């Protein structure tokens, strides 16, 4: 009896901290979203749900329904994230597959190189590309010389020569891929690495070609890894504003995060900003709980094994 209480008391400060600075903080977003603003256009939260003012929420929902500016931003965000995610899987799967199955004695060093990006500040990684993609940058010159620039120009993916940083959706999407693909590759690697080699050998012994062994054994077994990686990439991509800001700096590539950032930090429309934050959080809540549930299940399986 005595010792059971010891453990609860140990957990108390942490629980109190998270309750105040996570739960109450999140409730502050809800209260502001259903609140009002004063004459200085500062947000006034309405804490009691019975007093909630639904005006601002209705305003945003009406905008979404009538395909207004917020609708365009939401659709653009989903489009950017979907393309970036598809590209990440297309590039990340072969890399994770090679690292898990064919790297041989290089496995350790390959894995290290896959982890290294995590240890580098995200903004430094973006700064590196800003240096490269400036009109006179090394990357711009190389891409011009080897014909990549012309390829992008003729495909309509780049508006003008050397204009990589001038509000190009292409650059924003590629920057998102660059920024977040490590989050996809690592869980994918873990999933592929866990697959029992003997299952693939069994398929081959029973006459499956390498391709069909891959399609019918490896691929299905790696689906949990793909899903976990996709969620881990989608969550930060949906909340991103700094990538678009840094590599584009144009309202033409605004994502939901940019809109929220403009309202919350720069402008004086904090109530509408809170409504958008709430909508984004609701949109992502499904993904968050899916991920937490799948990691808990994986944890339970690991401790049972």
């Amino acid at each position: 009896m005595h010792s059971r209480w010891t453990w609860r008391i140990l957990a108390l400060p942490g629980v109190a901290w998270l309750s105040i600075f996570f739960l109450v903080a999140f409730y502050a977003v809800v209260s502001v979203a259903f609140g009002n603003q004063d004459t200085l256009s500062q947000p006034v939260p309405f804490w009691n749900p019975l007093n909630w003012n639904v005006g601002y929420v209705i305003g945003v929902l009406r905008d979404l329904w009538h395909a207004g500016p917020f609708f365009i931003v939401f659709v653009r965000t989903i489009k950017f994230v979907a393309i970036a995610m598809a590209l990440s899987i297309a590039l990340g799967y072969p890399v994770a597959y090679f690292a898990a199955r064919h790297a041989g004695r290089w496995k350790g060093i390959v894995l290290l190189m896959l982890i290294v990006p995590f240890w580098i500040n995200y903004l430094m990684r973006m700064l590196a590309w800003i240096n490269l993609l400036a009109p006179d940058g090394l990357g711009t010159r190389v891409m011009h010389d080897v014909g990549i620039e012309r390829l992008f120009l003729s495909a309509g993916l780049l508006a003008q020569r050397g204009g990589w940083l001038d509000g190009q959706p292409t650059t924003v999407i590629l920057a998102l891929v660059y920024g977040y693909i490590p989050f996809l590759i690592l869980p994918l690697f873990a999933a592929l690495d866990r697959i029992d080699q003997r299952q693939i050998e069994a398929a081959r012994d029973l006459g499956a070609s390498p391709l069909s062994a891959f399609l019918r054994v490896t691929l299905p077994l790696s689906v949990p890894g793909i899903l976990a990686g996709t969620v881990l990439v989608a969550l930060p991509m949906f909340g991103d504003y700094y990538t678009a800001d840094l590599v584009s700096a144009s309202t033409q590539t605004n994502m939901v995060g940019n809109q929220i950032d403009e309202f919350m930090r720069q402008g004086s429309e904090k109530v509408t900003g809170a409504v958008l934050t709430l909508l984004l959080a609701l949109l992502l809540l499904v993904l968050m709980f899916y991920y937490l549930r799948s990691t808990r299940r994986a944890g339970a399986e690991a401790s049972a094994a």
Partner: protein
Amino acid sequence: MSWFRNPWGRPRWLGVVTVLYILWSVVPVVLAIVFAFNAGRSRTTWQGFSFRWFTGSTGSVLHDPALQGALKHTLLLAVICVAVSTPLGVSLALGLQRWRGRGSGSVNTLMLLPLVTPEIVMGVALLLLFLRVFPEIGLGTTAQVIGQVTFTLSYVVVIVRGRLTSIGPEYEEAAADLGAPPHDQLRRVLLPLLAPAIIAAAAISFAVSIDDFVVTQYLSSDASTTTVSMLLYATARGAPTPALNAIATVALVITLVTLSLAFLVYRRFAGGKEAAALAAMEM
């Protein structure tokens, strides 16, 4: 040319894709570091090797007030953040590990939520909290520390719980059988066994704090609470000098040294496999 006749036979192309990917992910950053040592003002044309952007008398990390201030503030936040989140996280991990039954599941979910919540949601939530609920705290250093602790806490708990699970309950049970009261089990048995995990957790909190951008930016008040990440964001597109690359390099070296030390300490005391899992934690 065997891959040409039978492209699915041996996966050479997979190796090529992997090498290209690794080059693509690392070379830009290496170039950014190289240009921190450029003798001229350009970040695209090499003009000779020099330390001027690190230690030169004007505009260098060492002597420019804005750069120096940002570096100092980043380190200040990281130190306080570690000092708060480590004890808080260790005690929450111990509590959660042994607390079975009602409430423990929800607390566990609550603890993991900051890890998966998009940072802008946390940034907005904490901003409104400090503007409207705790106006006496307001924005600034204190708010920044509180914001960073709120998610580094989860890293500490996850790492320490991992170690607790692998230690198992046997040692403290033995101590209990020998008559040790709970606080002695904790102080003389569990904490020494947990030391490598605690050191690793502190190091990872330190690195996460240094690299954090969104929450720190949302809770900053004025120029005096600017960090290195915020400085990179604010000036990368302006007309920056290689000093920006230099300060990013300094922050990177501090992060890498901290994480490598943590990795070595953990491997020394807890074995290679757990250490590899730890290396992948910082994300």
